């Protein structure tokens, strides 16, 4: 079974620039999650999709962050404009249903300078 694919692996941008991350979940997994992990902390949920609908985006800073999941498969997370405090690892995960663990991608490490 192929894992969760994420790209790019690393990204360095200047503040106020925009950036986009891509995620391809495991085939057949209905639920997709984006997490933000700041160095030394646990992951924090940004947004949860069920198929192509948003289930929870309560912690997504909507003034600068946006996300979509086209056709209920791939997903993109965008930041525009980026701030220094957005420097973090952005993790994508998918899960088939309740009572199953998540499968995480390797993450995208974003550095905003």
């Amino acid at each position, binding site marked *: 079974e192929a894992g969760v694919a994420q790209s790019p692996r690393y990204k360095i941008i200047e503040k106020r620039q925009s950036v986009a991350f891509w995620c391809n979940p495991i085939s057949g997994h209905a639920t997709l*999650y984006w997490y933000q992990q700041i160095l030394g902390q646990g*992951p924090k949920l940004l947004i949860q999709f069920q198929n192509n609908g948003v289930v*929870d985006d309560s912690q997504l800073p909507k003034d600068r962050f946006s996300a979509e999941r086209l056709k209920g498969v791939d997903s993109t997370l965008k930041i525009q404009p980026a701030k220094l405090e957005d420097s973090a690892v952005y993790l994508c995960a998918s899960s088939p249903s*309740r009572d199953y663990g*998540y499968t995480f991608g390797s993450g995208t490490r974003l550095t905003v300078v």
Partner: protein
Amino acid sequence: SQQGEEDPQALSIQEGENATMNCSYKTSINNLQWYRQNSGRGLVHLILIRSNEREKHSGRLRVTLDTSKKSSSLLITASRAADTASYFCATALGLELTLTGGGNKLTFGTGTQLKVEL
């Protein structure tokens, strides 16, 4: 906000010893999960324990859950250098989805950094 708090924050042991990490949480849960994260990598799911279960085993891992105390523990027996990683507990709050029964929303703790020395 972080739901779980792991204890200790850091743990250093010798290879062959057992490692115990604890997790406390604040609200009722549907299930609790443990994940491992090697430096610079994504998280790997280790084990899931449901709210009506008290103990679960997987290889060298043993997880206990005490819902009355809102706490869980992860025991790694006969540790190896390869077990060096950060370990996170995560709680699922039983979010009821009205669509096709999707996954839980997990809230992660702050993690325990385990170092196993040769």
